[in-house]
């Protein structure tokens, strides 16, 4: 059974190699590389254990700030803070050759994480929600805003 598995892996590598060779021959190359690095503009201080420690009904706004630092977004009345961070999960390396010229680049596939903390009027955490979804980098959008249509 292990031999079969090894054989299947070898066949998979060979197929990927052949696909790469064929695509280079055709003048283009698309190579997805799995990674798990922190986004270039992202903060790295939001750890699961820190989120756990900010228990609803106990942690105050002051404790949240002292543990996590300034939020990336907040409501003026202080009722909600949002913390945002990003991890690059895949790098899509692409290359296109045509005649005597060519072009290439890296398209990062991001996973955007958000921690939204709601506070009650006394400034105590009433709810905390963490979510993550694949999508364009929030920070990249700030650098290159979408084109404005007239």
């Amino acid at each position: 059974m292990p031999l079969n598995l090894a054989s299947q892996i070898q066949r998979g590598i060979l197929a990927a190699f052949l696909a790469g060779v064929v695509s280079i021959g055709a003048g283009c190359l698309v190579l997805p590389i799995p990674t798990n690095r922190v986004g270039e503009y992202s903060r790295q201080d939001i750890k699961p254990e820190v989120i756990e420690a900010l228990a609803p009904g106990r942690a105050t706004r002051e404790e949240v700030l002292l543990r996590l630092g300034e939020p990336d977004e907040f409501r003026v009345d202080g009722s909600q803070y949002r913390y945002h961070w990003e991890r690059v999960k895949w790098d899509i390396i692409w290359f296109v050759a045509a005649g005597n010229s060519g072009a290439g680049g890296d398209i990062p596939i991001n996973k955007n994480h958000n921690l939204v903390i709601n506070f009650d009027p006394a400034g105590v955490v009433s709810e905390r929600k963490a979510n993550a979804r694949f999508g364009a980098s929030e920070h990249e959008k700030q650098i290159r805003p979408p084109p404005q249509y007239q």
Partner: protein
Amino acid sequence: MKTMTALFAPILLAGVLAAGCATPNANPLHADKQMLQFIEDGKTTKETVLLKLGQPSMVLEGEKFLTYRLGYDEKHGYYLLDKAPVGWMGVKYNLVLVFDGLGVVQRRSLVEIH
């Protein structure tokens, strides 16, 4: 003295914010390992903080909380960063200062961002 601080700190903060880019050491060349040593809980006033560190990166809940973004150089120490236009690039620490009603530092933390 503390009452005077409570009176003048908002005016000073408004002035610092109006000045916009008044961060005295916003440059790695002005890095200083002792930069934060002047801050003492229960003693340091908001006025002193604003005069030494300049414009905070964030002001929350009136002026109860001030935060500063700091870079860090192993050789030379801390340096202040203006609020980056994009994300947290180059930010090593986020200094969070909590003030009481009289404008005196009560608690603080240096949150490691990177």
